[in-house]
């Protein structure tokens, strides 16, 4: 099965890196969308269905925490699994965001295999 993925990050470089890692990891990717903050992502989700979301935390405008909160409050969007990708590797932050509804948490730096494994684990595919 091919998946549709949304990458939410204010860094164009990081969005490009994540997209490249997904494409070259062998993950079955049907489409890859990008947004630079939570609000842009919510606007995009009103027009495009995705199977998984990869989101940063620190972003200008709507940050990752607010974005996760808004997803959890929406009857449709709450079913889309979201994985946080962040420079913050503290236990405190990881537990907080998993409690807010994130299905996975990947801290930077990460090896490409870790991103694929996180996606496949979240989507119920074999890692």
């Amino acid at each position, binding site marked *: 099965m091919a998946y549709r993925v949304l990458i939410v990050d*204010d*860094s*164009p*470089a*990081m969005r*490009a*890196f994540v997209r*490249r890692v997904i494409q*070259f990891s062998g993950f079955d990717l049907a489409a890859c969308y990008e947004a630079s903050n939570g609000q842009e992502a919510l606007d995009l989700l009103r027009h495009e269905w995705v199977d998984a979301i990869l989101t940063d935390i*620190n972003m*200008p405008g709507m940050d990752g925490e607010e974005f996760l909160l808004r997803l959890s409050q929406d009857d449709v969007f709450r079913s889309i699994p979201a994985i946080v990708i*962040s*420079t*913050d*590797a*503290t*236990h*405190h*932050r990881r537990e907080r965001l998993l409690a807010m509804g994130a299905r996975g948490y990947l*801290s*930077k*730096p*990460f*090896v490409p295999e870790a991103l694929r494994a996180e996606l496949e684990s979240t989507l119920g595919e074999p890692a």
Partner: protein
Amino acid sequence: MSDAALCGGLREAVEEILATMFFVDCVPRANGRHGEELIAARVDFEGHLSGSLRLRISRRAAHLMAADFLGEEAPELPASRTVEVVSELANMICGAVLSRIESQTAFRLGVPLASVESGPVADPGGAGEVYQADLPGGSLWVSFGFGEGNA
């Protein structure tokens, strides 16, 4: 926290990020080369402790790293995209250092600010713990400090 712990955390963070995300092995050095054209970046942070991370990298080294990071050919990569990658590098290093030394408390990173230094810089300046290294194509200089003077 001791200066040695901070120094070790900074070195570990830089070397792990360069190896894992940029596939670059760096060679630590005691004194950076001055007089190179540089790209400079800064990330401020707030939390239990506040301060900033400052990074300077040779333009050529940054350009080569950015091309690898983005999977593009170096000659075709615009300078603006190199600056974006340097911003992300500074962001990742700052978060990784704080995660090592402030693992029990929350922190918040500011938006990275990066720019191309228009001419050779005689002295990178700055304060706090400093890590310097040689990279393919040039040198890297990172400082990390707490307090008003660094924020």
